[in-house]
Every structure is written in structure tokens, then in C-alpha cells.
């Protein structure tokens, strides 16, 4: 019996090897037939690899970058857009592998600190780092950071205006600079509506466990918050569930998340990651590489952060007058009349 099992296992393994070899063969043969050179050295096809720190399917930050990449592939025939997921590990290796095979590498996530050492190894490759910046300018790295504090200011204003208890909440992913940038803006916005608004905060310390997000939101609700802003990626999905069970409102983050639960998500603080990637790359493809080596703050004035109220036909809980006020405040932030606090340096 044992021998048979052992034999079977060996058989599976060998077959697996064959299958793997076959798979590796397959794309190679047509590739050599269709294109005489490997893609990376081919002059008229620019390879763009989008490396995300986590995984797609968060219906927020990473999915937004994917949407931007897909749009690029559709609009520019000369672009070959690839996607790599790091699954929260081996960021550096995945980034290096991507750099070895592409012309433009987009690193999506604050975790890619090693870009400062990797980028100089590949001087011909253009890097774009999303959501963080290098400590000193690197000539072939474009950092894109977002003025999430400005968008969160509006979210805070809406939350305070929609709250009946005078207490609003925010569930953060972790106590870090980027997340706290949302929170300072949110607090300031809530106070702008009414100085007396109480803002309750807690952190999930986990971006993948929705149960944790749900617990956090329930605790904030028990503390009186009736509008809760989620800033915790996939873990934040739990906030929407808690909102539905506890009949209170929630505010989405990064993407326009209203479609996830129309009844409780009143609006979303949009961080247009996909749009910024699209715009940055189309600029580079267009021949303008002047942005490389700098940090670009994608802010409200050029529409990279803002509030989304869902697609047409979505239930609207926010009255039009509040939306009008939000629009006025937005103009004031853009003009510089309102200065929003930030945790970024």
C-alpha cells in the first residue's frame, strides 16, 4: 500500500515537472516566431510592469492601479502591460525581476523601500513609486504621493454633517505616516463643520482581515460614532458589514466603493491611483521624462483626490446642500484658502 502511494506521489511529481516544462515551452516558441527578439530589447514595444505590494481583489488601492494599467494597455498599442503581485512578501526580488524584463516598472505600495538601491542597478529602466518617496531624489525614479489629507478633509466634513450623534469614527489600517495623513485631514474636516464634533479612531493593524475591521467599527459605534471612515484596504470591508448590521453610515476609501454596499456607504474618499499611473506613463511614453527624479504630489487641484458619490443611479444619502458645501470647500482647498494639515514632511 505504502509503496503504491509513494509511487503515485513520484508519478505526480514527475508529471508535474513535465507539465511545467511544457508550459514554459509554449509561450517561448510562438514568441520567437512572432517577434525576432525578446520583448525587453524590442524597440517598438515598451514593457510596463506594475508590481503591487499586496494582491489584487481589494476593490480599492491595488485594483485602482490595475484599472489604470488596463486602460494604458487599451489606449497605447505600443505598450505591453504586465502585472505582478507580491502578496506582501519578497518585494525587492519581485521588483528586481520586473526591472530586468521591462522598460517601466511601477511599484504600487509604500513597502518598496529598496527601490533606492534597486533603481540605480537598472539605469535604463524608469521606475514609478506609488504612495511613498525616496529619501533623496533618484534620477530614474518618479515618486507619486497623494494629498489624501485634502480628500479626507472633505470626508470628515461630510461625516460630521451626516452624523446625528456628533461623534464620527475612522478605522485605520495601522498607526503609520500615510494612514495618519488621512486621519489628520479627516479630523480637521470634521472640526471645520462643527468644532464640537468628536472623532473616534482605532487601527486594525492588519490590511487583510475583515473580521478585525468589523470589530474595530463595532467598538467605534459602541463609543457613539455613527459615520465611520474606513482606511484599511480589505480589512475595511468589515467596516461596511458592521455598518449594515448596526445601521450606521460608512465612507469608502481609495476607489469609489459605493457599489459594494449602496445602502450604508454614503461616499468614498477617492485616491485616483490608476489615473495618476495612467497620466504619468502616458507622459513618459509621449517623450516627456522630466518628472523622473522628482516627487509628484497628486492633489485635489488636478483631481487625483476627491469625493466619489457612486455611479449614476446609486442611492444618495447625502443631501444636495451638503454636496454643494463640499464643492465650495474643495474650491477653497484648491485655491489655498483652507490649509489642510499633513503628516507628510
Amino acid at each position: 500500500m505504502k509503496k503504491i502511494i509513494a509511487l503515485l506521489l513520484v508519478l505526480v511529481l514527475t508529471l508535474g515537472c513535465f507539465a511545467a516544462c511544457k508550459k514554459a515551452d509554449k509561450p517561448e516558441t510562438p514568441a520567437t516566431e512572432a517577434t525576432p527578439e525578446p520583448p525587453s530589447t524590442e524597440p517598438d514595444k515598451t514593457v510596463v510592469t506594475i508590481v503591487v505590494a499586496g494582491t489584487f481583489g481589494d476593490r480599492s488601492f491595488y485594483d485602482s492601479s490595475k484599472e489604470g494599467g488596463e486602460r494604458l494597455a487599451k489606449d497605447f498599442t505600443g505598450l505591453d502591460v504586465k502585472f505582478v503581485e507580491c502578496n506582501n512578501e519578497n518585494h525587492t526580488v519581485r521588483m528586481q525581476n520586473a526591472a530586468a524584463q521591462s522598460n517601466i516598472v511601477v511599484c504600487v505600495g509604500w513597502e518598496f523601500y529598496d527601490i533606492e538601491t534597486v533603481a540605480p542597478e537598472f539605469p535604463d529602466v524608469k521606475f514609478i513609486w506609488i504612495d511613498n518617496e525616496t529619501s533623496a531624489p533618484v534620477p530614474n525614479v518618479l515618486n507619486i504621493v497623494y494629498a489624501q489629507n485634502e480628500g479626507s478633509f472633505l470626508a470628515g466634513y461630510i461625516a460630521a454633517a451626516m452624523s446625528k450623534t456628533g461623534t464620527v469614527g475612522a478605522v485605520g489600517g495601522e498607526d503609520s505616516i500615510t494612514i495618519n495623513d488621512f486621519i489628520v485631514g479627516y479630523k480637521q474636516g470634521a472640526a471645520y463643520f462643527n468644532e464640537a464634533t468628536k472623532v473616534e479612531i482605532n487601527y486594525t493593524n492588519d490590511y487583510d482581515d475583515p473580521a478585525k475591521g468589523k470589530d474595530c467599527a463595532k467598538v467605534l459605534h459602541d463609543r457613539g460614532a455613527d459615520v465611520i471612515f474606513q482606511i484599511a484596504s480589505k480589512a475595511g470591508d468589515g467596516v461596511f458589514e458592521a455598518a449594515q448590521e448596526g445601521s450606521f453610515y460608512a465612507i469608502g476609501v481609495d476607489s469609489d466603493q459605493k457599489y459594494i454596499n449602496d445602502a450604508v456607504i454614503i461616499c468614498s474618499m477617492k485616491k485616483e491611483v490608476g489615473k495618476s499611473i495612467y497620466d504619468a506613463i502616458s507622459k513618459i511614453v509621449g517623450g516627456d521624462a522630466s518628472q523622473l527624479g522628482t516627487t509628484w504630489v497628486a492633489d485635489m487641484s488636478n483631481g487625483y483626490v476627491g469625493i466619489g458619490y457612486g455611479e449614476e443611479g446609486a442611492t444618495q444619502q447625502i443631501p444636495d446642500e451638503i454636496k454643494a458645501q463640499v464643492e465650495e470647500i474643495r474650491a477653497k482647498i484648491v485655491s489655498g484658502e483652507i490649509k489642510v494639515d499633513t503628516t507628510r514632511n
Partner: protein
Amino acid sequence: MNENTWNFWTVASSTLNQMLRSATPVALAALGGLMTEHAGIMNIGMDGMILMGAFTAAAVSTALASAALGIVASIIFGILVGLFFALFTVKLRSDEFIIGCALNTFALGITVYLSRTLFDSAGISNAPHLHNIAIPLIKDIPFLGSVISGHSLFVYMTWALVALMWLFVYRTPLGFWIRASGESPETLRTAGKNPERMKWIASILCGVFCGLAGAHLSLGNLNGQFGQRMVAGRGYIAFACVIFGGANPVKVFLAALMFGFFDAIGLQLQSSKLVDADLTSAIPYVITIIMMVYVVVSGQRRRERIAKQQLKKLELK
């Protein structure tokens, strides 16, 4: 509600309510883990078993549009995982630790692979799920109602399962044989029972309970969601609870409740801004380590005491 009306009772009910919710998936998995522990198998693969259960439940529930079928599927799949685990640990006598690790890694990969193939996404959401139960009468009792009522079916089912499990382990012949298969397999063999068969049964039961724990995570605790890292180490905490509770179902359940309690208290502390968030999320794990140290030290003390008593007896003679 502002700072003035926010009082001890609201915090207490909020904490205890969350304690029951946090403890349930851990307790369910630990009920399975104590079976393998009794059978003398060190099972660290519970994390993976839970994840596969969570995925099966969410996937089948989505495909067949029925939460009940999702739960049944997670139980059936749990049996299969249990068989798989027993095949390697019992039949082929490979290292339990390695198989456990392999199971955890395998689960991370296979669930996302299947999810991508079947649903074209790394996660599942909006699967049909269980609704929370408001218990009539009890829900109107001021403090108790807000703590006990309004949980998912699994929370209440776990309480019943703890009692049933205790009866099974300590009051039925089969439970006795399973314990013997771990403590003294040769004695069991002399008594005419096959210890290997007992280990198979224990392993299957473990798979079933971990499957249920997974189904609870995706369909009971959450409203039909699956994500690759949603188990978040609960399988390991369950293992710690099994050790701490000495594989006694009631004590294991209390250990799970304790874990839930510290999880809940941590969240309350950081929400009150009394303690830093980074610190509070570590509380359950720090407690786990303290628990382990306690178990080891008290075990040693007991052995020393027994040894001294034996010595005294000898001296008296």
C-alpha cells in the same frame, strides 16, 4: 453619545460581546485540535485547514446560492483534509510538523488559485451568509442581552459543541480509545483496538472542526467574504489554546475566551487612546507566550512535587 454618557457598562458589554465573537473561530478550531492532540499528533496545520474551510464555504455558498450548503461543503471538505493529513502523518509516518507547515502553505496557494480560476478574483464577497440571531426574551435583558444576543448561529453552536466534545472525550469508549492512542498506543493494541484507526478518526474530526471554524469566519462572522489572509494566525492561537487547556474541551474553550477577551480589551484600550495601537495588537500574542510559560513551569513544579513525595515515601520505608 459623548464622553459623559459613555460609561463602564457600555465598554463592558462592547468588550464581552467582542470577546464571544473573537473566541468562536479559535474555539471551534481548537476543539478539532484537541482531538489530534489526544491522539498524539502535533497539528500545526490548523491555520491552513481553517482557510480551506473558509474558502469552500464561501465558494459553494456563492455557487449554489445557499449558506447552508456552503457549511455542509466545508464539513465535507474538512473530512477530506483530515484524511489527507492522516494519510501523511499516520499512514506514511512523515514528520507532523513538516506536513502541518506544508498544509498551511498549500492552503494559501490553492484557495487563491481556485478563487481566481472560478471567480476571476483573489477574493470572494457577498456570498449568501448566516444572519445574526436575536434571541427573544434574552435580548431585552439590559446588560446580558447586548452581550449574548445578536451573534451568528456558530457562536451558540460552539457552546453546545464544547459540552458534547467533553462528553465524547471523557465519557464515551471511542473518546477513551482516541486518548489511549496518543498516550499509550501499545496498551490500546493489547486491548484489541487499532491505535492507527483512532488517529485517523481524530484527524478527520480535526478537519471537520477546522472546516466549521473556516465556515464561521467567512459566512458567520463575516457576511460571505473570503480573502487569502483572513485567517490571520487563528489556527496557531487555537493550537496554543489546546496546549494551555491541556486538551480538555472546557479548559480549551476558556483559553479561547481568554484570547478573545484580551483581543477585545486591546481594541478598547487603543480606541480610548490609553495605549498605543501597535502595542495593543500584540496583547493576545504576549498573553499566549505567558500562558505557555505558565503551562511549562506549572507542569515542571507538579512533577517535582510528585517526585519529592515519592522520595519521602521511600525514606519512610
